């Protein structure tokens, strides 16, 4: 019997599992994918937001700011990276320029005091490779870059280290709430718990309907495609370049990443499918062109990766958080989830109002350093050999990711834990070695069998 079953191992679920575990609750995290971060959380823009442009007075803003603060508090103990890049909201037209004072006022109103107007000259002094066509901007130095996969991994590893349980390949198929307790049916057997926390992301509404009979919100999947430029592009840009947002979306961002690439995206494409994170050539080409307009030096740079993420938007703009007896839903966490996750977890704990005793001396596991500016594994002797040359992933890192309390559950999970195969050659050199090293580890193996002679 668990106090809490967290359904969904995305960034929000991982943060909630951690928070509730540290508060002393007995937690089980149920994830239907082969690994955590199998849904919306695997594809985002990796920015730790200040909340300067979030809706004033909203729960979203409160959670983003609480999450931002907590991330900075805990990151060194979990060995999570932070690239203090700063962001510039750039206006490229008179119409956009006219919106800047409003953006600045909103930032100040949201408590982000470190934000100010910058002239094209000041922007170019900071970012000399940017197109000189911009008319002005708002600089927000507190916007930072983080590792979008190591962060949730660290949260869930800390939950595990302090007593939580994680069940992957476990889909909730039904549930009955009676006498103050749930009996959940799952694909790996029944789970008994006091409270269900719905962190099911793209399936938040279907889970709610399954458990409570009707859903209070409707997921409207919104796909975002991204293009990742080669590491040679990294020296072109220090700051996150944000567009002036529209009513519907934050728009296309050009940003460095902690891994030393330049990322351009996302698009905002409404679609029915909750799983189809497909890319298309025309859109990818448009993104590459858009990126090159903003950062002309991207012309001729190699494209290292292409991907799409699906944001669990709903029919309304705000987060869809609600509580019922034995049930808390953290729904509609669209695009600010990476920042807000730790804050949402605090908020959910507040709603839950548990009487458990917090863990006295929690264990702080550390995640591998994957950020380019950090001390990577290859810098310490005895790493064995380099397996992925583009990302400098060592055999020691691969072996560690395939063992431990939460080994990679599929190839995507291995990539997110080690960077292997994520570089410019996309596995030309290392894929076969990875197939060998991961043999027997994944339900969906890299090799389909032996090669006949």
């Amino acid at each position, binding site marked *: 019997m668990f106090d809490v079953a967290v359904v969904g191992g995305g960034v929000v679920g991982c943060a909630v599992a951690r928070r509730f575990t540290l508060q002393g609750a007995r937690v089980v995290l149920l994830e239907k994918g082969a690994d955590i971060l199998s849904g919306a959380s695997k594809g985002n823009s990796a920015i730790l937001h200040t909340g300067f442009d979030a809706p004033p007075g909203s729960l979203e803003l409160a959670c983003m700011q609480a999450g931002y603060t907590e991330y900075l508090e805990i990151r060194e103990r979990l060995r999570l990276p932070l690239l203090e890049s700063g962001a510039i909201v750039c206006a490229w037209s008179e119409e956009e320029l006219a919106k800047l004072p409003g953006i600045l006022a909103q930032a100040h109103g949201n408590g982000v005091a470190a934000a100010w107007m910058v002239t094209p000259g000041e922007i170019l002094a900071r970012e000399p490779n940017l197109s000189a066509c911009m008319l002005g901007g708002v600089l927000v130095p507190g916007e930072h870059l983080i590792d979008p996969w190591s962060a949730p991994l660290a949260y869930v590893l800390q939950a595990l280290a302090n007593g939580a349980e994680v069940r992957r390949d476990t889909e909730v198929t039904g549930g009955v709430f009676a006498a103050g307790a749930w009996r959940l049916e799952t694909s790996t057997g029944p789970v008994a718990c006091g409270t269900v926390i719905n962190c099911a992301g793209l399936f938040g509404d279907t889970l709610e309907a399954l458990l409570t009979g009707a859903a209070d919100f409707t997921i409207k999947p919104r796909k975002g495609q991204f293009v990742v430029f080669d*590491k040679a592009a990294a020296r072109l840009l220090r700051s996150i370049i944000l567009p002036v947002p529209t009513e519907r979306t934050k728009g296309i961002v050009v940003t460095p990443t902690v891994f030393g690439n330049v990322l351009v995206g996302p698009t905002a494409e409404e679609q029915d499918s909750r799983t189809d994170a497909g890319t298309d050539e025309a859109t*990818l080409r448009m993104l590459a062109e858009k990126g090159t307009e903003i950062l002309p030096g991207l012309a001729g740079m*190699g*494209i290292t990766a292409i991907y799409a993420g699906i944001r669990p938007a709903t029919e309304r703009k705000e987060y869809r958080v609600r509580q019922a007896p034995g049930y808390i839903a953290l729904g509609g966490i669209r695009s600010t989830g990476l920042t807000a996750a730790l804050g949402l977890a605090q908020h959910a704990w507040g709603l839950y109002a548990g009487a458990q005793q917090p863990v006295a001396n929690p264990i702080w596991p550390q995640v591998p350093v994957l950020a380019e500016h950090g001390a990577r594994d290859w810098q310490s002797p005895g790493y064995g050999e380099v397996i992925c040359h583009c990302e400098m992933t060592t055999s020691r890192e691969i072996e560690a990711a395939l063992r431990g309390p939460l080994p990679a559950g599929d190839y995507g999970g291995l990539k997110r834990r080690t960077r292997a195969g994520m570089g*410019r050659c*996309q596995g030309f050199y290392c894929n076969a070695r990875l197939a060998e090293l991961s043999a027997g580890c994944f339900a969906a193996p890299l090799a389909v069998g032996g090669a006949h*002679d």
Partner: protein
Amino acid sequence: MIDVAVIGGGPAGIAAALALRARGVARVAIIEREGSLGGVPRHCGHPPFGLREFGRIFTGPAYARRLAAKAEAAGVEILLRHSVLGLKPGGVLDVATPEGPRTVKALRVLLATGAREAPRSARLVGGARPLGVLNTGALQAYVHLQGLAPFARPVVVGTELVGLSALVTCRGHGIKPVAVVEAGNRATARWPLGLLPRLLGIPVHYNSQIAEIRGGARVESVLLRDGTVLACDGVLLTGQFLPEASLARLSHLVVDAGSGGPAIDQYGRCSDAAYFAAGNLLRPVETAGWSFREGAAIADYIADDLAGGLPSAEGGVEVIAGEGLKFVVPQRLTRVTQLRGLMQLRVNAPVRGHLRVRAGDEMLARQHISTRPERRVLLDMDGIKIPSEVSRIVVDIAP
């Protein structure tokens, strides 16, 4: 201090190291990031390799072993599992090793890091991202180095020589390609090799490209632009080689956007005169035999240079790839009384006309040309006289 550090232990790098030792250069080191020498031929399990170098025909792995043995016998220092991560001015290298990071200093450095095929991302092939989308190099490593099969029924994209070689690799290891997809209206490889898919009973879709890869955990099908859906469990992306020039791109060296490799002069010398480059890093893509000879030739210039025998690179002449040309190598000519050697070029589109070398309005050379984009084009520089006041020449195609 090392005399010459060769980065990359494939055919070009090994040939260069052998030639340098033969010229009496004392300390020659090959820095190779893999666990063995040989480069790409290590996993090309088919002949013909080595005919010109050794007068015999080898399979790729046997050729690679032969090269490695030669390097060892010649007294070349071989640093395996050493990854060069940074090139600093004057021949200073940042190197990662299993014993920890170190700096290697050399009087001259030869970059010979080869080429690889363009991955899916660089081709912007859309759709889902299931397992089973690979390049030929990865397929060869699966079957030849690991004894594994990454798929059983792939769709093969491309009909360059490497694509046809991939078909042979598949057939030799129980993998049955379901179709070949080629963007052009005919096979890229020369007749009669282009007939190979038909001989193997594999349908070829010409004028066709993948619009979308479909699948969950693994590839299930591909959608072609004409609406055809091909059921398969993998996609093999062949050819479209790119120089492996990341080190140069991340360094102070000038990289040519046309070739994708470092810009060199007729001696293989880069924009920093301590650095030279040879092999498929210079341009996509030539055979192992070509790379071997090129490595040896450029090593000869390096030996000359160490002996004080190369003219200064100061005041060189820029070579511009003009109308109709994708690239020209070398990108710069050091001024000498008698130009020698070959210019390597590629055209942008099938062409029949004249290849011209001009300095302003003055025609320095002109020859008939009839070729296609993937084919090697050579221009003999012997006899070309560059006027002394000229700082750039243009090579282009005219009717």
